[in-house]
């Protein structure tokens, strides 16, 4: 539930706890910390780590003597989100048994956080996500893709035209048709099916991870609070996979300052926060809204605003506020990514070939120092190359309900009549100050990837002196190993967005998570980790056949 706009903290209910990252009191149960944007599990817990955790190497004998439950496992996935799921899926398919795998995560479903972030940013189950047909986190082969399933469904429903359109899309995307993307619902359903097939619930221990340490016998120990428990539990394992996702949503300093000063969480929101009340009010009364950011979330919100505008007939004005104009195309080698109306569009968040073609190989071959330059050339903030989104922008500009403004936000204030005043400094020389008045502000400037905001990873860095790359993230090998954490035969891997800036660009994508899983499991197979066998052509085919018939992976 959202708080009514309050001018002082006086009207606040009792605090429900503190945020572990910013330590501030939280007064209700928002999906993210309203002060710093930390993602769940953000509520502080009494951290009574045993004294041995102050040492880099924990003595297991000592730990057992203290009486807290200590269990053992061979493979330990920390996070329990999509990255963990994809890794565990790979392990199961390569022969590991449920009993050998432990997963610790805050959520009951691997896609829980993903789904919440999608829902808040207006990608409901019916909406299409960004990635393509073959990016299936439930299927390590990527075939048949989501498109094939959708086509079969459409043919059964005699919707021939729609079926043919999708077939044309997957045949010619992204050159002659826009890239096919599945509906979010299709992804969730396929994940639920695969969860059941591989026995996810059997492996999952729902709880909150507190820390990871090396043990004195060449393994690792993770400390966690099981859900609804006040005592620490420990899991010891030789192979650990970390995929903890983002640290939080990105709350700009201006927004943080505004919240601290005025305790208002309704008029100015981050797009990943629940903000349905804004659409409700606009549908009833119309109004002016400031939109920040130029990524996929800004595109989708603009589309939603257009839908409401058309359905309600209310006058809704969208001011798209950008830091600076963007007119130049991105150029790499002989190729260009075109910029239109200050938006950059490409089908996926990286050029396709960074997922497996020559750009993937080029990045891996590059020296660590050169990688950031390559990543900057290929990446940047882009939105999907979708005609419907482009059409909204063009029509909005033509009809005048969507306008672009440029400037750096200096301050956000309420104007006393339940509206916002945004003070800007533009880029003219000398810079001039301007003001914009609006009913709402939605900030779509993304998610927080700062290592310092990630308690478990920052703690590992400090404790074991882990090196950071040029993008400030932890250095991992091309096999996603945190090499400095090697402990005898034990190994720790890191996947997901927190592995950015290393040898692989699209770490934060379904396909990237599968790539990471494949590389790490290849290492484990090579090292002779228990029960794993290489996925050669025959076993791969037979395992796929089991997937296809929804049979449990064979041991």
């Amino acid at each position: 539930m959202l708080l009514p706009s309050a001018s002082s903290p006086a009207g606040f209910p009792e605090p429900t706890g503190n945020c572990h990252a910013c330590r501030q009191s939280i007064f209700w149960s928002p999906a993210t910390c309203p002060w710093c944007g930390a993602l769940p599990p953000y509520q502080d817990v009494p951290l009574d780590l045993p004294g041995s955790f102050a040492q880099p190497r924990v003595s297991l004998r000592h730990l057992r003597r203290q009486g807290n439950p200590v269990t053992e496992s061979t493979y330990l996935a920390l996070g329990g989100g999509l990255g963990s799921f994809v890794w565990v899926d790979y392990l199961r398919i390569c022969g590991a048994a449920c009993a050998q795998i432990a997963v610790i995560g805050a959520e009951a479903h691997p896609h829980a956080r993903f789904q919440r972030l999608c829902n808040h940013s207006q990608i409901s189950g019916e909406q299409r996500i960004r990635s393509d047909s073959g990016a299936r986190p439930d299927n390590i082969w990527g075939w048949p893709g989501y498109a094939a399933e959708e086509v079969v469904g459409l043919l059964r429903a005699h919707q021939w035209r729609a079926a043919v359109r999708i077939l044309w899309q997957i045949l010619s995307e992204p050159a002659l048709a826009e890239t096919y993307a599945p509906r979010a619902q299709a992804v969730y359903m396929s994940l639920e099916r695969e969860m059941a097939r591989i026995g996810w619930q059997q492996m999952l221990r729902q709880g909150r991870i507190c820390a990871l340490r090396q043990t004195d016998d060449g393994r690792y120990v993770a400390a966690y609070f099981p859900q609804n428990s006040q005592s620490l539990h420990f899991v010891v394992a030789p192979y650990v996979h970390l995929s903890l996702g983002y640290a939080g949503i990105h709350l700009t300093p201006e927004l943080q300052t505004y919240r601290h000063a005025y305790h208002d969480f309704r008029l100015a929101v981050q797009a990943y926060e629940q903000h349905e009340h804004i659409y409700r009010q606009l549908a009833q009364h119309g109004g002016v809204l400031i939109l920040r950011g130029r990524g996929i979330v800004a595109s989708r919100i603009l589309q939603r605003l257009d839908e409401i505008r058309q359905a309600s007939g209310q006058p809704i004005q969208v001011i798209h506020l950008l830091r600076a104009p963007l007119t130049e195309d991105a150029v790499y080698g002989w190729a260009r990514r075109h910029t239109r109306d200050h938006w950059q569009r490409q089908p996926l968040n990286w050029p396709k070939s960074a997922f497996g073609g020559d750009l993937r190989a080029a990045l891996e071959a590059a020296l660590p120092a050169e990688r950031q330059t390559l990543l900057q050339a290929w990446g940047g903030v882009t939105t999907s190359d979708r005609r419907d989104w482009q059409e909204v922008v063009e029509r909005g500009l033509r009809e005048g309900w969507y306008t672009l403004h440029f400037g750096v936000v200096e301050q956000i204030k309420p104007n006393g009549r339940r509206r916002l005043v945004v003070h800007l400094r533009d880029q003219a020389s000398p810079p001039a100050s301007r003001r914009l008045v609006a009913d709402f502000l939605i900030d779509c400037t993304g998610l927080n990837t700062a290592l310092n905001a990630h308690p478990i990873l920052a703690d590992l860095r400090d404790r074991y002196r882990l090196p950071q790359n040029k993008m400030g993230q932890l250095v991992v090998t091309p096999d996603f190993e945190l090499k400095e954490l090697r402990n005898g035969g034990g190994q720790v891997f890191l996947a997901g967005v927190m592995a950015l800036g290393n040898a692989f660009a699209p770490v934060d994508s379904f396909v990237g998570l599968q790539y990471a899983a494949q590389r790490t499991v290849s290492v484990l197979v090579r090292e002779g980790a228990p029960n794993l066998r290489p996925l050669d052509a025959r076993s791969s085919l037979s395992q796929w056949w089991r997937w296809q018939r929804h049979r449990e992976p064979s041991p």
Partner: protein
Amino acid sequence: MTPTLRGRWQTRLLLLTLLGVPLTGLFAWAYRDGVTPFALLGYVLLLGFVWDVVYDILQTLRWNRDWPPLFALLSTLWEGVFLWVALTWLAEQGIALPGISPLLTAARFAAHYLAVSLTVWAAAHSLLLLLFPHWRFRGGQWLSRWE
């Protein structure tokens, strides 16, 4: 799968051997000519290695540096047309390529070529993904694995 040059070569070699050879055997049996279909398959493979270099360069002109399935289909058809035109032109010049029967007709060539190339195209977008999970991440290289 977004191919690299090595990946293209390896994939072409694998599919023309794995699927092209048995299919060509069928055509050799049907045409009662044990040489021409196999010689054609050999030319397709050798010329293909050269075409792959051209496609690889064209790919770098694209921002995504990818090769949509449609491009793969069109390029395969183009290679067939090119080979047939080259064969007939050479024949007109009085040059007979080794292994090619002078009785080869356009219809026979087309039936054989389309059967092989369409099968190979379909397999490259399905079967190989299932046989080699690393293939799509290595730009079509199936021979080498992660070191």
